[in-house]
Each structure stands twice: as structure tokens, then as C-alpha cells.
């Protein structure tokens, strides 16, 4: 049996992802696993596919719902592959766990939706907490999810005071070393993120994915 990237079975997985056959993708991953392909080779095929989807989104050939569906298919496939990856002793498929929240009072959600989909596509476990959560509750949720990173999105200057509460409350709750804090969204500048005590800032979703890799690795 051939297991390299040019293999038809693996190529079909990549193509199905790129073509957004999102129902077929997890099924194809499962079949490939059943016929003896190493889990890692399947993950690689999926990754090539989802990266192309991400590029097409940036080029406006694909749209936000496409990205969300592709990320969902990636998630489902990873659920199927996870046990095999652990068995093969490959670094487990998930890159880290992130909670994302819009800070209190801010209902803008387009940027957070994009960030969530891109991170899921990149293999992170993402819990989108939505909006209007008090800073302390965001921390409770991060604990519940056993998150590595708390990502805060704010487009309103008047909601920034709630963003900076998160690092401050982490200190007060003796949890500052437990989580990395990332900030983004139109109202946040790199200077502000530093002043607010965040560990990182990204100006768009692409940079956000890179940032999360760094933050998770830095833990």
C-alpha cells in the first residue's frame, strides 16, 4: 500500500476539503484510517486542503460560511483520528485550547467569527464564548475548558476597560501564570495590548493564528 502524499486516497481527501464537500471529508478520513493509512498522513492531507480553503477565503473566492463549514469538517475528522494519533504516538492532533470572547457590552462578532473559524481550521480547539460575558465569568469559562489561551476581541473603545479587567482579575485570582492572554479587534492597538497586560496582539486573523501558535508554545 502506498502512503505518500501523491496517493489517490489522500489526494481525494485534500480535494474534497478544497471542494467543500464537507459531509464527505470525515467519511473519507475514516475510510482511509480503516484501510491502514497512518493517521498522520491523513491529517497532513486535511491540512493541505484547509490551508487552501483559508487562502481562498482571503482572496474572497470563498466566504465566511464556507470557512466555518470547512473548519467543522476538520474538527469532525480530527475527532475520528485522535485515538489513532495517540496510539501512533504522534504529537496529538490538537494544537491547544483557546477560549474567545467579545468583551462586555460589545456585540460586533464578524471578526471573532472569522478568527474562530481560522483557528479551528488550523487545528486548535476553540470555545467561542460569544459576547456580553463579565470579565470574571470569562476566566471561569477558561478554567472549565482547561484553556491555554484567553482571546479577547474588542471593537469598542468603551468596552476596552472590560478587556483589561481580565489580566487584572487573573492576577487577583492567582491565575496569571495559568493562561496566556491575547487581544484583538478594531479598538485594540499593539500599544494598548501591552498596557493592558496582554501577552500578545494580532491585527488580523492570519496573524492571530500565528500568535496563538506562539502563545501555546510559550506555555
Amino acid at each position, binding site marked *: 500500500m502506498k502512503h505518500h502524499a501523491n496517493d489517490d486516497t489522500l489526494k481525494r481527501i485534500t480535494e474534497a476539503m478544497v471542494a467543500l464537500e464537507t459531509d464527505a471529508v470525515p467519511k473519507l478520513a475514516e475510510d482511509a484510517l480503516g484501510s491502514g493509512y497512518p493517521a498522520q498522513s491523513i491529517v497532513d492531507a486535511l491540512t493541505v486542503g484547509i490551508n487552501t480553503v483559508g487562502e481562498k*477565503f*482571503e482572496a*474572497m473566492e470563498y*466566504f*465566511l*460560511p464556507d470557512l466555518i463549514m470547512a473548519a467543522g469538517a476538520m474538527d469532525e475528522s480530527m475527532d475520528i483520528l485522535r485515538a489513532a494519533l495517540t496510539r501512533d504516538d504522534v504529537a496529538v492532533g490538537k494544537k491547544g485550547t483557546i477560549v474567545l470572547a467579545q468583551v*462586555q*457590552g*460589545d*456585540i460586533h462578532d*464578524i471578526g471573532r467569527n*472569522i478568527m474562530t473559524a481560522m483557528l479551528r481550521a488550523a487545528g486548535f480547539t476553540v470555545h467561542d464564548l460569544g459576547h456580553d460575558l463579565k470579565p470574571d465569568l470569562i476566566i471561569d469559562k477558561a478554567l472549565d475548558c482547561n484553556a491555554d489561551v484567553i482571546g479577547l476581541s474588542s471593537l*469598542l*473603545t*468603551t*468596552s*476596552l*476597560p*472590560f478587556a483589561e479587567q481580565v489580566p487584572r482579575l487573573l492576577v487577583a485570582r492567582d491565575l496569571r501564570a495559568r493562561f496566556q492572554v491575547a487581544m484583538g479587534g*478594531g*479598538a485594540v492597538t499593539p500599544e494598548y495590548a501591552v498596557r493592558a497586560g496582554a501577552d500578545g496582539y494580532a491585527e*488580523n486573523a492570519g496573524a492571530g493564528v500565528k500568535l496563538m501558535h506562539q502563545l501555546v508554545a510559550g506555555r
Partner: protein
Amino acid sequence: MASVFEVLRRAENGLYIKEHDFDMKLFKTTSGLVKEHGIKFNKDLAVAKDDKMADSIFEAGLRLATEMGMFSTDTSRIIEFSEQELLQALRLAPQEMVLGLGKDARVLRARRFGDGYPMIVCGGCPGTPLPEELFLPVMMSYAREPLIDLLIPGSLTKIEGMDVTTGGPLEIRACRQEMIWVREALERSGRPGLHIYAAGESSATELGTLAICNDRYMRTSDSHMIPVLSELKTDNKRLSRVMTGYEYPAFTTSLINPIIGGFGGGPEGAAIVLAAAIMLATAAYRVDMHCLHPIHNKYISVSTKQAMWVDSVVGRAFARNAPVALLADAWTTAGAGTQEILYETAALAIAQETSALHTDSLGATNGVYPNCSGLEARFFGEVAHAVFEQKLGPEEANDLVLRLFALYEHGFEDPNLGMPFPEVYDVKLIEPKAAWLDTYERTKDAIAQMGVDFR
């Protein structure tokens, strides 16, 4: 037509749906309508000229509005409207409004092609966070520009050195102070009766709007804003603004931000979503006018070709099928003091004037930095009036816009944010500094060379 109470009843008892399912249904339905009507965005067109396509977008918008309704995020219910209710709401929408008072009053019309009236120019820096010490001078820089017909305020984000927080008590104080200073700016500029558009920009919740419903702050000749959440959604805070307007007879305007590349899909879908949102906001909010603001999912600015086209084709669609007063935002990537902002301004002014739109102001740097001033708003007015007098058709307008686009396109990846107000204006005299004035004059000459007749 459904009463305000009927709308609230539907928000409580309408069909239940998960928000995610609503979003996905919207994507499916919109994509289907784009295909069915053969609507196609052409990257060489920023100004729409195809009447048939505009009519299709109106038809498709009506279908989308009836099939989707408006989703209430607080109750997860759909506020449905029949086609007849939507069309009736559009028919009853005001065709002419007197905004402002006395000699400073202006007539805002639902525009039609060839009706002989130029656009109404709104100036200001909508929602841009301004420090307390700059608020009054920045507002005066707009108030002094005679071509500005309406004034939209910036946002106060600090009061007595304290942060204004969303939903906090200082939102009340900030909105009242905003109104006191905007009025002072108008009085000191000899235009005490000018209409204040979207009053209460300093509050992200309904608190600020409630706080200014008083002649001392927002007069009944002014207006406040009720956003539609993207896409085709509302919530209790938005509906509270509707209720605020129920007994206080100031004018109201919607704010609609379809995301290009978002749940509606590309520019074609975003245009259909925008048309549907105008219909739904007219029926559910009973607003008198609409603020249109399509967002490019990567570059945000309205000066992208996609966003200009979305506004343009929707302007054409309504002017032909059901005229209502539409004010399009003209948000630029660049900031005050740069040549780029003036090129973006000119492109937007031309595209909007020739698409039966009014303008709802120029948001320099997409409303993020206080790098804004009255001078670029003056320029907007000058260009818009010039092309109106020239009777520029959509084809010539499109040629000009594309040539201007080539001059500022580089800024999307690498924005020239320009300078904060005090660096481009003399803050005491409220006059542009020599360097900014010089850039303005040079750019105006260059644009005159391109065929805009400023006489």
C-alpha cells in the same frame, strides 16, 4: 403594516431557530438568489449602470427579506414580514423630510434619477473616539464648512479623565456632553439650526439615546440611529431604541453593515442582503432614512471597488423601484493630511452622487483614529456638486472612479493613516494648516485635470 407592538410580539413568539442555522440559511438562500437572478459583480465596475441587474437585486432582496425575516438574538425568534407588509412600509416611507431648523434646515429626499436635486452631504467623524480637549474644535472644523448640510458627531470616550464604559453611567454624561459641544460648534459657526445626524454616538447602548431625548440635547429636528445587526438581525437593545423613538418625534435612521465575504457571500450576495435589510429596517424600525455601510471583510473600507459597487447597485435598485432616503457612508483607509484620503474621497463622492445616494460622512481611517478634519469633508462636497452639475453618467463616473482607485489602491495593504487633527489644523483658528491646504489644492488640480469641473 405591523405596529411597533406587533413587531415586539413577533420577536417573542416568532419561529424559533438557532442563530447558526439562521446564518447558514441566509447563506444558502442568498447564494440561490444570486444564481437564480444571474447577478454578477464585475471587478471593472465600481459604479453600477445595469438597470436590469439593479431591478433583480430589488426583487431578490424582497424575496430574501420575506424568506428570512429579522432574527432577534435575544429571543432566537424570527420577526417575519409578508411581502405585502414590506412593500407597504416602503411606500409609506417619507419621500421628503425637512431636517434641522430655520435657515439651516435642509430637505432630504428619497432620490430618483434625474430628479434635479443633488445629494445631501453629511459631514463629521462618526463614532471616532475623540479626546475631550479635541471634541469641540474637531466638530467646529466641520460646522464651518458651508457645503456640509448635516453634522454627525464623533464619540467621547473619556469624561473627567474617566473611561466611558459600554452600558455604564458615563454613557449618559458622554452623550449629553457630546450634544452640548456639537450644538456649541454649530452656534459658533453661525449655523445653530443644522441637523445633527445620528445623535448620541458616544453610547453603544440605548442609555445614551434615552438620555438625550430632550430639546436641550437632541432636538426633534435631529436624528438618532438604530443599527441592524449583521446580517438581518436585531436585539432588545436595538428595539429599545425603536421604543425610544416611539414617543419622541426625532428622526431615526438605520445603520446597515453587510459584510462582503461574510454570511451573504461576495459583493452580489452582500447587495441582496443590503436591499433586504433596508426593507426590514423600514418595516421593523420604521426609520425615516438609512445609513448604508458595506464592509470588505479584509480591508473594511467603503472605498474598495466591491463596497462602492454594492452601494451603487442598491442605490440604483431603490431609486428605480421604491425610492427611500439612503445615506451611504464614505469610509476611507487613509487619514487627514494625505493625498490618498482625497483620492478616496473623490472616488466615493463620484460613485455615490451618480448612484442616487446621499452621503453619511467620511470616516477617515475607518473611524479608528482622530486623523480627520473638515477639509476632506469640504472636498467631498465639492466633488459631489461638481459631478452633479456636469450631469455625469454612470459610465463616465465609473471611468473616473477606476482611475482614482489606481491612485489609492496601494493603501489597503499599507495604509497612510495621516495625522491627528491638531497636526493638520490650527486648533485655535480652526483652519487647515498650510501643508494640508497645499496637499488639498494640488490634489484638487490633479482631479480637475482628470475631468472634474469644479467651476
